[in-house]
């Protein structure tokens, strides 16, 4: 009996694996979203959650619906790109930007910053607020990019649920704030609406680190907790895009538990604030 159970389990796993590859391939061919080089463990988990949510017994059933109902694809995309962040997440990262990166950013007459994988915009608004506090926002343009048009729309609206704002406020204060977060939003009907004057310095746009190329020269890239969802090949591609986008001695910030150590592009960057995973583009030897 035990052997039989094992076989059934192994067979079920193998079928899931095949269906998984087929679904990812179908999404790529039909909708041109490329998840083929995403880290599989997280993607598998997200697909299992999507199966439950859409009441599909198998990935084949899910694939059938995704292929025939475009709105179903967009619902799935929300599951595959689900990303939760807070404003000023990891306050020490933002403090390090203030203390070590801002003084160098000041030397540029105009600034461009790329928030890659901006999801619903928390990081982009946090940087805009920080740069305003440091007197740099007026000469800055922030490119905030993501692959999910739905989250981009949400990000562009700059509206967050008011119960998240208490946490944002604590983070902001710990980031070395020079003002009160409440200076930047209006509260109404259980929501916090962030200031238009911040949004005027942010361009939200559709960009895929898997399939698109460099679109601007920037002084800084912030891409936190995005690379963990990629496999090594895609990580290398993404970090290569950052290298090619950054100006000479430009800055790259990644997530606190991410590292360029295993990356093929490691040599293109030098530690700048090691503890906070802030790198500086290295001079070509």
């Amino acid at each position, binding site marked *: 009996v035990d052997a039989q159970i094992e076989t059934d389990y192994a067979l079920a796993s193998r079928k899931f694996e095949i269906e998984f590859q087929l679904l990812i391939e179908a999404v790529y061919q039909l909708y041109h979203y490329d998840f083929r080089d995403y880290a599989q*463990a997280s993607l598998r*988990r997200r697909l299992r959650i999507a199966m439950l949510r859409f009441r599909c017994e198998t990935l084949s059933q899910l694939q059938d619906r995704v292929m025939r109902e475009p709105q179903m694809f967009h619902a799935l995309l929300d599951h595959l790109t689900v990303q939760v962040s807070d404003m000023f997440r990891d306050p020490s990262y933002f403090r390090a930007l203030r203390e070590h990166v801002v003084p160098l950013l000041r030397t540029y007459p105009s600034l461009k910053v790329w928030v890659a994988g901006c999801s619903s915009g928390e990081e982009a608004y946090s940087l805009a607020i920080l740069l305003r506090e440091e007197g740099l926002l007026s000469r800055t343009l922030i490119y905030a990019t993501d692959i999910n048009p739905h989250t981009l729309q949400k990000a562009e609206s700059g509206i967050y649920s008011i119960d998240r704002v208490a946490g944002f406020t604590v983070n902001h204060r710990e980031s070395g704030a020079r003002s009160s977060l409440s200076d930047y939003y209006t509260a109404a009907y259980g929501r916090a609406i962030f200031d238009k004057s911040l949004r005027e310095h942010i361009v939200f746009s559709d960009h895929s680190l898997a399939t698109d190329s460099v679109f601007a020269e920037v002084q800084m890239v912030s891409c936190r907790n995005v690379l963990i969802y990629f496999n090594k090949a895609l990580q290398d591609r993404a970090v290569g895009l950052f290298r090619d986008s950054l100006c000479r001695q430009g800055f790259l910030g990644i997530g606190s538990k*991410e590292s360029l150590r295993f990356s093929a592009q490691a040599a293109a960057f030098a530690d700048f604030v090691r503890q906070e995973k802030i790198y500086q583009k290295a001079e070509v030897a």
Partner: protein
Amino acid sequence: MTVEADRLQKIKAVAIGASAGGVQALLELLPVLRAEQRLAVFVVLHLPRDRPSLLVEVFAPKCILKVREAQDKEPVADGTVFFAPPNYHLLLDAGPQFALSADDLVNHSRPSIDVLFESAADIYRERLLGIILTGANEDGAAGLAAVHDAGGVTVVQEPLTAQSTQMVLSALELRTPDLVLPLAQIAELLGGLGSDTPSRLTA
């Protein structure tokens, strides 16, 4: 309740989940492990999400095995205890290697025991031993069920000996584990893994 020796002989990795009271419980278990057992050990211990973890500093001096915080894309090494970093889910991926995720909380937790156990069960199947220890929430129950369904060996701390019982009771509710043991006997079980003469454990 017994586990056949041949099932224990297959074990190559141990996944442990704990919450309230977990540090103390782990201090009874992890120091018994020896490098020659060639086991990889994965631990999720619920901790505050907003500060760095001191687990490595606490456990390294007390353990024979190497003790580290798992990093994204890092290959799994045996003879090592890997803790999940605070505020990230820890997953096992093909390789085997580690993957981190910043996905939403699961059972109000990040890292979540369910996330670790489910992904480790996918990769290790009958080569995985899953252990649920003391804790005050329901995280880990679904994960241990996944280990069970994948053919792995499952162990739950005897509830009367757990500092907080909810986690072990939730695990017991979902599936009947292979073994329900007090800490001292879990330590004995762990100490016997991977060696030439694995003890046939009875409880």
